[in-house]
C-alpha cells in the first residue's frame, strides 16, 4: 500500500507529516520551515500559497484569501457578523459560500484544496514519491457539513482522504505514542480560529474519547480582532484615517496587532507601528492591557471545558494530565486559566504547532496497517436528529456517542396513498429545529397504500470520520431504497466533480508559472555567459557584430521580466542565433589553445 500522509489543515497554519520508521515527522520546506500559512493569493501569474501569499496580503488584499476554514461547510447567513472584516466579497450558491476574486468565484473547499496541493507538492518533493492518500484533521467540534467540506477539499486536491480525524485526538495520539501514558488526559486546543477540548482515557494502547466540546468560532483571530478594533478607533481619533475604507491598511493593522499579541506572550510590553498615508501611528501595549481586552474570550473557553467534564462524568481534579495544543496556548493568560480550572500544570513538551500533524501521521500509520497496538475510539461531538411535528428536533444519536454508531427509525404515511415522506436531518443540542444546524434533507419513497401501512426503516450511520450515511429499507418487501440526500450547506457530487476538473486547470496555471520561472533562469544564465564571452572575444569579432549581440541581450533582459515564457524563449533563441558566430570563433580559439598546449605537452613527453 502506498504511503499515507497526515495533514493538519489549520485556520492559520497547515502542516504535513509522515511516519519515519515508527516516528512521526513534519515535512519542512528547503529552508527548514514546516508551517505553511493557510493563505492563498491569486496573482496575475497564478496561484501562490503560504509565506509568499502572506506577503501579498497587504499588497493585494482583495485577492488574497486567509482563514478560509471559517467558511467551510457554511452558508452566508452563518458569517454575516464578520463579513465587514474580510477584504473580499462573498455570496451564496446552493447553500454554500462562494468567495469572489476578480472575475472568478471559489468555494471554500476549492481554496482549501489549493493549500492541500501545496502541502502535497512539498511532501512529494521531500519524499521523492507521488502522494495520493491522506489523513486530514478537523476541529473536534466540526459538524457533518464541515467534515464533508474538508473531505471534498481533499478530493479536489487529488487526495484520497482515508480518514478525517479530530485535531485534539490527533494530538493525544502524538503524545501517547510511547504507550507509557495511561490515565485520563484533557487536550486543550486553541488555535487561530477554533477551540476544542477533548477528554480521553488512555489504557493499554486504546485511546477512548470520553467527551468533546468546543467552539468552532473562537481563537487567536478573535484576540487579534479585539486589539484591532481598539487600534482602528484610535487611528481614526488621532490621525483621522478611517481604516475600514482602506483594505490594505486594514490588513497591515491586523498583522501589526497579531505581531504585538505574539510578542506580549514573551515580553511584558510591545509596540505597534503602522505607516499611515499621513504619518506614523505608534502605540505601546502592555501585557495587562491585552489580557484585559481578551479576558472574556479566554474565559469563554472554560465553558466548553466544564461541559465536557460533565459529559465525561468527571470532576476537574480527576484529570491526570492536561495537554496544550495550538499557537494561542502560548499566551500566559491562557495557560494560567487552564491551570486554574484543572488545578494542574499543563504539558507542552511537544511543539504545539506540530503535534496535530504528527498525530495525523500516526493515524495514517494505523490505517496503513503498520501499527496494530494503538486504537482510537472517538465520539461524535453533536447530537444528530430529525425534524418532527411542530418544528421540534428529535434526537437519534446523542453527542459524545462513540463512533461508528447507528440509529434506526421507522417511518410511515399519514394519508392514504401517500407516496413520499420528507425528512430533515439536523445536528445540535437545542430543542427547536430553527436553533440547530440543518444538515440535509431527503425524500423517502413510500408504496401507495392506506395511511400507516407502509413501513420504511431508515438507518442513520455515523462512520469513523464523524460523517453521516443514510440508508433505507422497506420492511414489508425487505427491499433497499437508494436515498438521495441533499446537503443544506454542502457541494453536490456533481459540483465536486466539476471542481476536480477545474483544479486540473489550476494545475495548468501552476505549470505556466513554472515555465516562466524556468525560462527566466535560462535567460539569465545565457545573458551572463554571453557577457563573459564578449569580454573574452572582443578582438575576435567585428564591432558591428558586437553591437548587434549587445542589442539582443538587452531585449532578452527586458522580456525576461515579463510573464510570457514564449516571448522569453523567443528572446533566448534570438541571442543563440546572433551569438552563433561568436561561439564558433571562441571555440576555434579555445581549440587552437588546446592544440597548442597539447603540442607542448607532447613535446615534453
Amino acid at each position: 500500500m502506498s504511503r499515507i500522509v497526515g495533514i493538519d489543515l489549520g485556520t492559520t497554519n497547515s502542516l504535513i507529516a509522515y511516519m519515519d520508521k515508527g516516528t512521526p515527522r513534519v515535512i519542512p520546506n528547503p529552508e527548514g520551515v514546516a508551517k505553511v500559512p493557510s493563505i492563498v493569493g491569486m496573482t496575475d501569474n497564478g496561484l501562490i500559497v503560504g509565506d509568499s501569499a502572506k506577503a501579498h496580503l497587504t499588497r493585494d488584499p482583495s485577492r488574497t484569501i486567509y482563514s478560509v476554514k471559517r467558511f467551510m461547510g457554511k452558508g452566508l447567513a452563518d458569517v454575516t457578523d464578520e463579513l465587514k472584516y474580510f477584504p473580499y466579497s462573498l455570496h451564496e450558491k446552493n447553500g454554500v459560500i462562494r468567495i469572489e476574486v476578480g472575475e472568478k468565484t471559489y468555494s471554500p473547499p476549492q481554496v482549501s484544496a489549493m493549500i492541500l496541493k501545496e502541502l502535497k507538492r512539498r511532501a512529494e518533493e521531500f519524499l521523492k514519491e507521488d502522494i495520493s492518500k491522506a489523513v486530514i484533521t478537523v476541529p473536534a467540534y466540526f459538524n457533518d457539513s464541515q467534515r464533508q467540506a474538508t473531505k471534498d477539499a481533499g478530493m479536489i486536491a487529488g487526495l484520497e482522504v482515508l480518514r478525517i480525524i479530530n485535531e485534539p485526538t490527533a494530538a493525544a495520539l502524538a503524545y501517547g505514542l510511547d504507550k507509557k501514558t495511561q490515565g485520563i488526559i484533557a487536550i486543550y486546543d486553541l488555535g487561530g480560529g477554533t477551540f476544542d477540548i477533548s477528554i480521553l482515557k488512555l489504557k493499554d494502547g486504546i485511546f477512548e474519547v470520553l467527551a468533546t466540546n468546543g467552539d468552532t468560532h473562537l481563537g487567536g483571530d478573535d484576540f487579534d480582532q479585539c486589539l484591532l478594533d481598539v487600534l482602528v478607533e484610535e487611528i481614526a481619533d488621532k490621525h483621522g484615517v478611517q481604516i475600514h475604507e482602506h483594505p490594505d491598511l486594514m490588513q497591515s493593522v491586523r498583522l501589526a496587532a497579531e505581531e504585538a499579541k505574539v510578542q506580549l506572550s514573551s515580553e511584558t510590553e510591545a509596540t505597534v507601528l503602522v505607516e499611515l498615508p499621513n504619518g506614523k501611528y505608534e502605540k505601546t501595549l502592555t501585557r495587562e492591557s491585552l489580557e484585559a481586552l481578551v479576558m472574556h474570550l479566554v474565559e469563554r473557553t472554560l465553558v466548553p471545558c466544564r461541559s465536557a467534564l460533565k459529559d465525561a462524568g468527571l470532576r476537574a481534579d480527576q484529570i491526570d494530565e492536561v495537554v496544550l495544543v495550538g499557537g494561542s496556548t502560548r499566551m500566559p493568560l491562557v495557560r494560567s486559566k487552564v491551570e486554574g480550572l484543572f488545578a494542574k500544570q499543563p504539558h507542552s513538551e511537544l511543539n504545539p504547532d506540530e503535534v496535530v500533524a504528527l498525530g495525523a501521521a500516526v493515524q495514517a500509520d494505523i490505517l496503513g496497517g503498520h501499527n496494530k497496538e494503538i486504537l482510537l475510539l472517538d465520539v461524535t461531538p453533536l447530537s444528530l436528529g430529525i425534524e418532527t411535528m411542530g418544528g421540534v428536533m428529535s434526537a437519534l444519536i446523542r453527542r459524545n456517542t462513540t463512533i461508528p454508531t447507528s440509529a434506526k427509525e421507522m417511518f410511515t404515511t399519514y394519508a392514504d396513498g401517500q407516496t413520499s415522506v420528507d425528512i430533515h436531518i439536523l445536528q445540535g443540542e437545542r430543542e427547536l429545529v430553527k436553533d440547530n444546524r440543518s444538515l440535509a434533507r431527503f425524500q423517502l419513497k413510500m408504496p401507495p397504500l392506506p395511511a400507516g401501512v407502509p413501513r420504511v426503516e431508515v438507518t442513520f450511520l455515523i462512520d469513523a470520520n464523524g460523517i453521516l450515511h443514510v440508508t433505507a429499507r422497506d420492511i414489508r418487501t425487505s427491499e433497499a431504497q437508494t436515498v438521495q440526500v441533499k446537503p443544506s450547506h454542502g457541494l453536490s457530487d456533481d459540483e465536486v466533480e466539476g471542481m476536480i476538473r477545474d483544479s486540473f486547470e489550476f494545475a495548468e496555471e501552476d505549470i505556466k508559472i513554472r515555465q516562466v520561472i524556468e525560462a527566466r533562469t535560462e535567460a539569465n544564465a545565457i545573458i551572463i555567459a554571453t557577457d563573459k564571452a564578449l569580454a573574452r572575444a572582443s578582438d575576435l569579432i567585428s564591432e558591428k557584430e558586437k553591437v548587434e549581440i549587445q542589442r539582443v541581450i538587452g531585449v532578452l533582459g527586458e522580456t525576461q521580466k515579463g510573464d510570457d515564457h514564449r516571448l522569453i524563449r523567443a528572446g533566448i533563441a534570438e541571442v543563440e542565433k546572433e551569438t552563433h558566430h561568436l561561439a564558433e570563433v571562441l571555440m576555434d580559439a579555445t581549440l587552437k589553445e588546446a592544440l597548442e598546449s597539447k603540442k607542448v605537452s607532447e613535446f615534453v613527453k
Partner: protein
Amino acid sequence: MARSMCWHCQSEVTGEYLCGQCVKVQPLSKDLDYFACFKLPRLLNINTQELERTYYELSRAFHPDFYSTKDESEKTISLGNSAFLNTAYRTIKDPVQRVEYLIRLEAGAVKDIRSNPPADLFEEILELQEDMETFRGLSPEKDSTERAELREKLQRERERLEGRQEEMEKALGAKYQEWDGLQIANADPSEARDQKNGVLRSMQEILSNRTYICNMANELLETTG
C-alpha cells in the same frame, strides 16, 4: 456465537469473529443481544472493568481502522459490527440503560406496564410547573424580594427531588440484587417466571417515576440557573 458459514469461503466458521479458513471478519448475528455480545448472563450487577476489557478486545477485532486495507465487503462488515458493539457497550455500561434494555428484552413477558406517574407525583409536578411559570414571569430587575424567595423555594424543591432520585436509585439497586438472585437460582428463562416478571414490573415502575423526577429537577435547574 452460533456455528455458521463464512460469507466469503463458505466453510464453517470455527473462529469467534474471523473465519478459520480465509480469516475474513464475520458479521455479528442479527439475533445477538447486548448481553450476549459481551458474553454476559442477563444479570444486572456487572463487573465494569471486565466489561471494558471485553469491549476493548472486541473493538480491536472490529474497528474500521484495522480494515482500511481490506476489501469493500470486509469494510462494510467491520463498520456494522463496530456500530453494533458501540451501542451495546453504551447500553450495558450505564446501569439505568442496562435495566431498561433488560426490560425490553424480557418484554414479551411483561405486559401492562404503567407509564403514567402516580397521582401524588402528578400533583406535585403540576404545582411546581405553576411556580416556575410565575418565576419566569418575574423580571430579574424588579420584584427582587419576591423573585429571590421563589427562587430559593424552587432550589429547595430541586434538592428534595434530587434526594428522592437517589432513594429511587437505591431501591433500584435492591431490585437488581433480587433479579440477579432469581436468575442465578433459576437459569432457565421459563423458571420462576411470575416472580421474575414481578421484579421487572416493579423496576419499570421505579424507572418511570425516576424519569419524571429527573426531568423535573433538570427543568428546575434550568429555570433558576
